[in-house]
């Protein structure tokens, strides 16, 4: 595992964006040979998305031959609801770049058969040749995507009921009204992300520090599902100084080299 520690949120975002940009450019994607990217939502990756958009607008990066697979989506929320992950991806990323809409995959939380939707998503990833780089975040409880504490570390894309903690944390996006917050979501499994050829986890802010500590300094544990990536051959954790607040000084010095 690599642990890349940047000074602050902006620098961490820029480092991550540059990494993604370089990966795509080095891959030299073309007709029939797409670069596949797994993508997150939430506050953490916003800075990274902004930078990627900047590189695109500068003419340095094209998404013409990039396929994307988002990690999750709420169940039962209308697709055009401002808090849906479709809206998030459109407003914060897709509308600013040149990606082919046929190549932007997001789980459909309003599908009539939700498990079939999840299975079809796994199939699409397989048909695309697997994921080259899966970008993710981490919850304060150490979850990746909606794989909350207790999720199997070999799980696949499936329907998940959300933990009360998550619902409470999300209430602020739904006018503070708990009854409006979705209680279920479709999510890629830990196993699904582990299948990616490379994984990059973005972790910024002091409120994520404890989760980072549990994820990399303690053992692999289904209570902190991001810890599964200790067993992935190619993982990078990109964080800012604040996110390292619960790590041993020794660990931080080691990775800062």
């Amino acid at each position, binding site marked *: 595992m690599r642990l890349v520690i940047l000074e602050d949120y902006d620098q961490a975002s820029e480092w991550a964006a540059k990494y993604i940009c370089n990966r795509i450019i080095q891959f030299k994607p073309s007709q029939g040979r797409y670069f596949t990217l797994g993508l997150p939502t939430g506050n953490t990756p916003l800075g990274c998305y902004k930078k990627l958009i900047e590189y695109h607008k500068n003419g340095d990066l094209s998404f013409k031959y990039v396929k994307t697979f988002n990690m999750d989506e709420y169940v039962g929320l209308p697709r055009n609801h401002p808090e849906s992950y*479709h*809206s998030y991806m*459109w407003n914060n990323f897709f*509308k600013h770049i040149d990606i*082919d*809409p*046929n190549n932007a995959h*997001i789980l459909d939380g309003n599908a009539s058969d939700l498990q079939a939707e999840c299975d079809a998503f796994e199939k699409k990833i397989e048909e695309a040749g697997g994921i080259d780089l899966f970008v993710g975040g981490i919850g304060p409880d150490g979850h990746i995507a909606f794989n909350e504490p207790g999720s199997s570390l070999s799980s696949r894309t499936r329907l998940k009921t959300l933990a009360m903690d998550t619902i409470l944390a999300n209430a602020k996006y739904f006018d503070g009204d708990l009854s409006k917050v979705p209680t279920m979501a479709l999510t890629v499994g830990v196993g699904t992300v582990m299948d990616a050829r490379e994984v990059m986890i973005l972790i910024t802010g002091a409120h994520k520090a404890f989760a980072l500590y549990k994820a990399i300094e303690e053992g692999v544990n289904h209570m902190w599902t991001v810890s599964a990536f200790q067993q992935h051959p190619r993982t990078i954790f990109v964080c800012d100084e604040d996110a390292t607040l619960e790590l041993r000084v020794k660990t931080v010095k080691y990775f800062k080299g």
Partner: protein
Amino acid sequence: MPSNKSVSDAPIVQFTNCRILRSHRLQREDLWVREGKILNPEKLFFDEKGSADIQLDCKDSIIAPGFIDVQINGGFGVDFSLATDDFKSGIDLVSQKILSHGVTSFCPTLVTSPPSVYHQVLPQISIRNGGAHGAGILGAHLEGPFISKEKKGAHPEHCLRTFEAGAFQDLLATYGSLDCVRIVTLAPEMKRSSEVIRELTKRGICVSLGHSVANLSQAEEAVQHGATFITHLFNAMLPFHHRDPGIVGLLTSDKIPAGRRVFYGMISDGIHTNPAALRIAHRAHPKGLVLVTDAIAGMGLAPGRHTLGQQVVEIDGLNTYIAGTKTLSGSVATMDTCVRHFQEATGCSVETALEAASLHPAQLLGIEHKKGTLDYDSDADFLMLNDSLYVQATYIAGEEVWRQDALGM
């Protein structure tokens, strides 16, 4: 990549590098158009997997909904209250020329005229969509003849009438036909006006109060019967008085029926209304302000003498008077000039100034679901303006119908 052919073959145009007026704010968003309507690009992306066929760089322009002028008596030598042989080509000329002022829809206005004029002219006005040929016609605005003698302004006294005898039937007989009539201005203190107002409102015609000496309660009663507009506020009505505000008092009246809003026309040419008065009205009731030009035949022409229905008017700069008097008669200001002047005089935001000429007139006429905004699925009638609110280009149904040429002429 083109749109999903199972939904539509039509080309999709994406206007980029612009600031669009949406949800009352200027936002840095692209404007998408297909088949003459504003398109929802998120829906296009996810539902149809479509994208733009053509992308146009708007060089950081402001994009606003096209202006709607609900009171314009003519222009460029054409007078809508004159029953000439070439009336149709006259209205075509004006509708084409006002595109350069940012007007994409209008209500040709007829001042007080003898019935013969209405009978000849009204059948020649048809409600029609705009396009390269000119701005769209929403219907006629009939200002008079059922107005007050004391407040006739520039209207010819010998043509004034009442509907005391036959109420609505009198009105119908005078005008001949109401098929293409959108707005009627009348004085509500006239006997039997309530019946007339109710009858007009029932037929979907907007009733406006003007050229009147009504007091506030008469005006409020008229609103209760259905009136929703005030013709050129302050002009041709009793001045505001603190114990009887008259028609002006409607701006802050508490007797407006719930869910209804009273709109008021403002000629903000710098002459008809003192900027301080303009500010008072705007601050009292900002959501009701509708910019109108009240333009006359001389608009767009050199100073000198022109007609306004049965009268002769004299133009000197922006001032237009009944020849030989100091009675104001219409204006020669263009709509975009009015928008700029309104913004300067009130210090309001660009968004507010633009909405006074687009959203508010659309709301007045009950057409805001398709005109007056850049909301998804509304008609793609819009303008490109620079930061000083000068119109650079005019679009109707997504097609460019006028552009400021490079030399700025």
